[in-house]
């Protein structure tokens, strides 16, 4: 039972990550390979606050979101100048730089040893420590994230994001400040990703940089794409499928030594298969089919 609850909590964490990345990748059409960096920044901010200042969970969550969205702007602003392939490489670069910082600033982040003993959340006097209460908290945060994302994509603001995705030049010609929208959506998306990080840190009570690698970023973008870019429900489908699928393998009785590899191969393979035959993912509305000729 705890095992199932654990899986559901993980799914919840990945739903928040993929919902938030969907705003950038699926709705605005910008591939970003740095989402795990924001996930990590959220986790580290909350962990460091809790460990050093013993500050309350809600405040840590708030600061994590703010801190991460400020860094989000840092990635969003270059997206105005750097385009397409080069922007993807720039997000790779950002991701690896953040990983390096987490890994190398040993006195501050604990380096490769990570940060152990992160206190569990206490919200309005209630200590969240059982798996079940964590699941409830995760579910609530998922619902809030979904509500926020849904509001955004259904609004005229969201309409502009989609327009940017389809044709930046046309959107500019209609008087929309494309740059401002890109930076804003990057900030929102990174801020939301930080929620996942905070949940992860306080749930596992230990973090180290290996949870926030480039490979993790690629995993998150795979969830968005396989589930369906440009559709919030797709992100939920994607997270459920990609987190559950390898767990099912566990019951097939694969030896542990190769299970991890098989798991990765499975999602790598899925990504290729989807690109070949169903680039819009399960229920997506965008398939990255725009061969970019925008100025």
């Amino acid at each position, binding site marked *: 039972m705890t095992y199932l609850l654990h899986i559901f909590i993980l799914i919840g964490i990945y739903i928040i990550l993929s919902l938030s990345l969907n705003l950038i990748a699926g709705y605005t059409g910008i*591939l970003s390979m740095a989402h795990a960096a924001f996930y990590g920044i959220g986790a580290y901010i909350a962990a460091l606050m809790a460990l050093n200042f013993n500050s309350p969970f809600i405040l840590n969550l708030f600061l994590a979101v703010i801190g991460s969205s400020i860094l989000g702007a840092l990635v969003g602003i*270059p997206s105005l*100048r*750097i*385009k*397409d*392939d*080069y922007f*993807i*490489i*720039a997000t*790779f*670069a*950002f991701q*690896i*730089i953040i990983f*390096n*910082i987490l*890994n*190398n600033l040993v006195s501050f982040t604990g380096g490769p040893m990570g940060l152990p003993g992160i206190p569990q959340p206490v919200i309005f006097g209630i200590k969240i420590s059982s798996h079940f209460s964590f699941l409830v908290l995760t579910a609530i945060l998922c619902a809030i994230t979904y509500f926020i994302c849904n509001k955004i994509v259904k609004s005229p603001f969201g309409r502009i994001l989609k327009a940017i995705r389809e044709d930046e*030049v046309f959107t500019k010609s209609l008087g929309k400040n494309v740059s401002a929208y890109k930076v804003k959506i990057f900030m929102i998306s990174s801020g939301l990703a930080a929620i996942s990080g905070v949940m992860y840190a306080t749930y596992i009570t230990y973090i180290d940089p290996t949870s926030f690698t*480039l*490979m993790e970023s*690629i995993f998150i*973008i*795979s969830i968005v*794409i396989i589930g369906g870019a440009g559709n919030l429900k797709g992100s939920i489908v994607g997270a459920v499928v990609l987190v559950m699928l390898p767990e099912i393998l566990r019951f097939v009785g694969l030896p542990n030594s*190769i299970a991890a*590899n*098989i798991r*990765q*191969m499975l*999602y*790598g*393979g*899925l*990504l*290729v298969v989807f*690109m*070949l035959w169903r*680039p819009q993912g399960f229920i997506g509305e965008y*398939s*990255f*089919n*725009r*061969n*970019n*000729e*925008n*100025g």
Partner: protein
Amino acid sequence: MFQQYIFNTLITSSLYSIIGISFAIIYRTTRFLHFTHAVVFTSGAYFTFLFYKLFGFSIYFSITLAIIFSLLLGCLIEKSIYKPLRKKQASSMILLLASLGIYILLQNLISMIFGDDTKSIRSGVVKEGINILGARITPIQIIIIITSVIVTILLLLFLKKTKTGKAMKAVANDVELANISGISSNRVILISFAIGSALAGLAGILVAFDVDMTPTMGMNTLMMGVVAMIVGGNNIKGIVCAALLLGFAQNFGVWYISSQWQDAIAFVILIIFLLFKPEGFYGKKLRKQSV
């Protein structure tokens, strides 16, 4: 000490420039980021390990065979995945995502077959360095530098002098125009995959002889090659210069900050270039304003 830094810079730069050039050859004709290149690079090392250590073939035969297998691997990926995708008019983003998928697939396949631990093909080759001008340098490191110089010169000649080389340039400039003028872009792309992959395999082997191999060695090295390509402006001479700049910054950066920051140094250089000189050292502006 100083001489040692110079040598280290040369070695690092040679490596980045082979990787950068091998990647650029493919990128120029296909216009998408073929991340699977990282695993083609790694495969060179592991094929050598397989033939040399497990099958007991002679070292030179193993290396030759490994390069051929890397070449075939690259071509196989092109034929079985990229070409069908191109046929469906897939965008460069879709191709890129597919290439990431193949990368994950193949990298884990290598992990599964060979294990995640470090494998070595060094035994038998002299590990002890020799002293040159006060710097310690191993024979394999000298080979790396010489190979990179030879490869660069050969490629420059190939692109300038041969018909195939010129066709590659034509496809790089404008696929449609090349197709109209009777060049088969698919054939040229396949050739560029062959050359690029063979070079990547070779680079993987050289690295393995220098510092052993792990299944994940490819991505990091490839990223440095990509950085060299972008900073160089997707042009062979530019890539060599950029590789020198990167090698220099990383090795001399160690003087001021610790060696763990080498990756970060390279990527900071990249971001600076992307922001302020996106066309790189030698590159022309890649895109014209289109309205």
